[in-house]
């Protein structure tokens, strides 16, 4: 596990980086702030252990506000670009924000904010708190930095930072299983980063720049680009846990504390996915072949089927949720062959929007699901699905949150996932790739089966072993997150497509 001094140094390193950003013109402010506040909060939480919770929640509020400001700026002014310290791209570090990164940044902010409020009630011992909060905010900093970086080396650094803080958080449970899972997570993460770094060095050797915008113009099909892309993608697939590289995810996500599981499943794997998306759709768009896209799609389809099937077999709620993440990531990869086959234009933009919509909905829904499961686990001392009987009567709000999360995971209306899956199906039908339609149908039916297995047990009428009072600070964050996934994105999700038109 990371010790305090190491964390402080990392936090300081990162805190120094965007320092100049704050002093720039106002449109850069929000963007710099989003990263900066996370760091400052991590540092403050480390230095003032007693006030850690208050500082952290305060930081979370402020950062969410700046993420909203950034989203607004991108929506009204277009893509933002900023060179750190005034060094031009190629040499210096570029920060950028387009529609995609602003959306993901906003999702990150809301999920972390809700999970922070939840965590302020979840962690009770002061020792737990003083270990949790600095790592938590560090993780957030890394996520924000990753989403805003426009340069491959910077991305590597943030990826590494993200991986390390995620491992440390996953191990916080302290039990043997948690530590073992975290250790495996660490090794996989390091292997992934190494492969990514190897790809990055090849790129630098081949093109002399690491700026993604410049690379997009320079990259041409050839051995360098193919090898580099293969290396980087494999590293990222390991981190995003695409089947069959998913083996590390279920134990790691299932044994972490609830708020950590929420963020790991909703955000951390999606950060690696975001990079795959950037590389395949933006930077190396001209290099990717249909066969390669089909391979990703096929792996995604296998992930959907295998993950859903395993979720159906799971005995524990958290394991179910973790396998469901494996499956849900599979859907995202099934978009790649569609995007490859569709000609540039309205239909392709619709499909790309569907992909992002699905990713966003899953983020909110899965985070809410893990938080809700955490409530059940804390109240009853276990998360065994067979022993859930009577939960609907005892914890109605939590059961409702699980049910709503289920609506989003299955892709039923009115959730955002319904709109996402609609685009997946429409793209597959339009390009004649019926295999993805069949996989989506089977995956959705399996998802219904595993979700309603929980709900069915929860409706069973045995009385619950004890009569605990539920805490609003825990139930509301879970409910609000799933409400965003089901109602917010589903009914007011049209701006997502508009925002995605804002590109660098």
């Amino acid at each position, binding site marked *: 596990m990371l010790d305090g001094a190491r964390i402080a140094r990392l936090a300081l390193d990162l805190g120094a980086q965007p320092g100049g950003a704050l002093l720039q013109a106002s449109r850069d402010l929000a963007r710099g702030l989003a990263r900066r506040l996370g760091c400052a909060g991590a540092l403050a939480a480390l230095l003032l252990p007693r006030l850690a919770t208050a500082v952290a929640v305060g930081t979370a509020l402020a950062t969410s506000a700046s993420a909203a400001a950034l989203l607004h700026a991108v929506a009204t002014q277009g893509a933002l670009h900023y060179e750190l310290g005034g060094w031009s791209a190629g040499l210096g570090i570029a920060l950028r924000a387009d529609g995609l990164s602003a959306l993901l940044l906003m999702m990150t902010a809301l999920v972390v904010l809700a999970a922070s409020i939840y965590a302020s009630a979840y962690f009770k011992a002061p020792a737990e708190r003083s270990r949790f909060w600095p790592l938590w905010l560090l993780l957030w900093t890394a996520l924000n930095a990753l989403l805003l970086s426009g340069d491959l080396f910077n991305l590597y650094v943030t990826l590494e930072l993200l991986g390390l803080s995620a491992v440390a958080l996953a191990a916080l449970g302290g039990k043997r299983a948690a530590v073992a899972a975290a250790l495996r997570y660490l090794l996989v993460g390091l292997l992934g980063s190494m492969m990514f770094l190897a790809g990055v060095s090849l790129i630098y050797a081949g093109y002399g720049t690491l700026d993604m915008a410049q690379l997009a113009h320079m990259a041409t099909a050839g051995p360098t680009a193919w090898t580099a892309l293969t290396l980087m993608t494999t590293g990222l697939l390991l981190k995003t846990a695409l089947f069959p590289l998913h083996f590390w995810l279920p134990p790691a996500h299932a044994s972490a504390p609830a708020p950590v599981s929420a963020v790991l499943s909703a955000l951390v794997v999606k950060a690696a996915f975001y990079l795959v998306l950037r590389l395949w759709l933006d930077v190396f768009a001209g290099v990717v072949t249909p066969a390669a896209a089909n391979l990703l799609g096929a792996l995604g389809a296998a992930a959907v089927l295998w993950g859903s099937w395993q979720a159906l077999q799971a005995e524990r709620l958290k394991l179910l949720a973790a396998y469901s993440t494996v499956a849900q990531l599979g859907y995202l990869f099934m978009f790649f062959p569609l995007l490859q086959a569709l000609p540039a234009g309205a239909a392709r933009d619709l499909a790309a929007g569907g992909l992002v919509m699905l990713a966003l909905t899953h983020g909110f829904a899965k985070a809410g699901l893990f938080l809700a499961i955490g409530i059940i686990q804390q109240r009853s001392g276990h998360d065994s699905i067979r022993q859930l009987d009577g939960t609907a*009567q005892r914890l109605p709000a939590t059961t409702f949150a699980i049910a709503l999360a289920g609506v989003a995971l299955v892709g039923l209306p009115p959730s955002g996932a319904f709109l996402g899956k609609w685009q997946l199906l429409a793209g597959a*039908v339009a390009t004649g790739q019926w295999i993805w339609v069949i996989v989506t149908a089977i995956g959705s039916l399996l998802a219904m089966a595993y979700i309603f297995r929980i709900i069915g047990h929860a409706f069973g009428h045995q009385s619950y072993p004890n009569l605990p009072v539920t805490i609003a600070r825990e139930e509301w964050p879970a409910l609000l997150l799933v409400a965003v996934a089901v109602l917010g994105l589903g009914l007011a999700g049209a701006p997502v497509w508009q925002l995605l038109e804002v590109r660098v």
Partner: protein
Amino acid sequence: MNWDAWLPLLVVASSLLPGLIIFFLREGSHRLRTWLNLAGAGLKLLLVGILIWGVFHEHVYETRWTLAPGLDLVLHADTLSVLFVTLSTVLWLVTTIYAIGYLENSPHRSRFFGFFSLCVSATVGLALAGNLFTFVIFYELLTLATYPLVAHRGTPEAVRGARIYLAYTLGGGMLLLIGTVWLHVLAGPTAFVEGGVLGRLPAEYHPQLQAIFVLLILGLGVKAALVPLHGWLPRAMVAPAPVSALLHAVAVVKAGAFGIVRVVYDVYGVNFTDQLGLLTGLGIAAAITIVYGSLQALQQDNLKKRLAWSTVSQVSYIALGTAILGPVGTVGGIVHLVHQGVMKITLFFTAGNYAETLGIHRVSEMNGVGRRMPATTLAFSIAALGMIGVPPVAGFVSKWYLGLGALEAGMAAWVIPVLLTSSALNAAYFLPILYRAWFREPGSSWPAEHIPAARLETSAALLWPPLVTATLALAAGLFAAAPYSPLEWATLIAHREYGL
């Protein structure tokens, strides 16, 4: 505020909002819950009244909201949707009163009434859906809202019944979704237009359109309980009586039947469907269901099960009417949407009364029940006679128009025998019940007498709803030619559909 653009939304919201508030009410706030329910139902009735008047005078009411580029949620009132909305609203009001009496002092009433309201909101949304995309959304919402109602009692049997219900309906929903997406890719947003919109597509699309039609009908057929997709319906009987009543009369099975009507008339167009050679297949499926459901009903001793199989059979009259080309058959099918609803809800109310008052669940326990509960049994008898098709009850009108339509369309050779067989079977499973209830001597005691005989044979909230719906069933038959009667409205729909 543009009133015309808000009215459809308000009609949906008038049950949705009370439902959402009810979820957060304490179990004990009985009065507030009742008040909210009735206020919502009353307001909805008022709004629907305005809607009826406006649609009759060719006013356009439409709410439109963009969910994603090219995908609009559209609530639009036309003659067909108004028919279904009115049916849902009136029966919801009656069922709510019944449910308040039925569930008195049972646990989890806030949850029950919350989902009950959501269920009606979904039904009304589905009725007002202006395109296939919107229809699919409310169709799935209806499934989700009814699941907790079927599972409400929490017994292993209830949970199992609910799970089977869900497996069938969500599976069907998936087929419907795939069909809808396919159609969307092929033809763009498919708004419901009288006379259909797909006839204009070039001939090379016809094989695809046939495949889509099969997908859509399979998806809708699950809820409409077309054989062999009917398996969930008899098992969902474990639900409390008001839920069964609503499920069988308005919400779920009708959603499927209504969807079939929409797809045939307003998406494909009935002439184009016939041109594609799809109408006969639908008619045969409906005919098989009608006969098979009746045969099964004959073998059930459990009263609710017998009624459930009778629903399987009766709902397919609507599909049968759809499959008969020509305005008269159309009128018969569409008017049965209303008539079957009113009659079947009466039957389920009365079955619930027998169970709640005397603990009677089986037909064999009903000897002499007419003497103990004359008003309930009278309501039961009217509805049962209507189901058989005895004039002047509403069911006769439906069957008359179906038969006439078949003659006109030259399909009499097989439709008339189906109608006659079915009526004979209906008589075979209903008349023995009436005989037992009125003419047999009662046994020494009832299975479990929960409510003792007083001035009224059972509690007032349980007694009035079936009397009201039985009166409606009688009135719909007696005054079929009056303006704004279901028959007149169905005729209006058929006229606009065929452009007469």
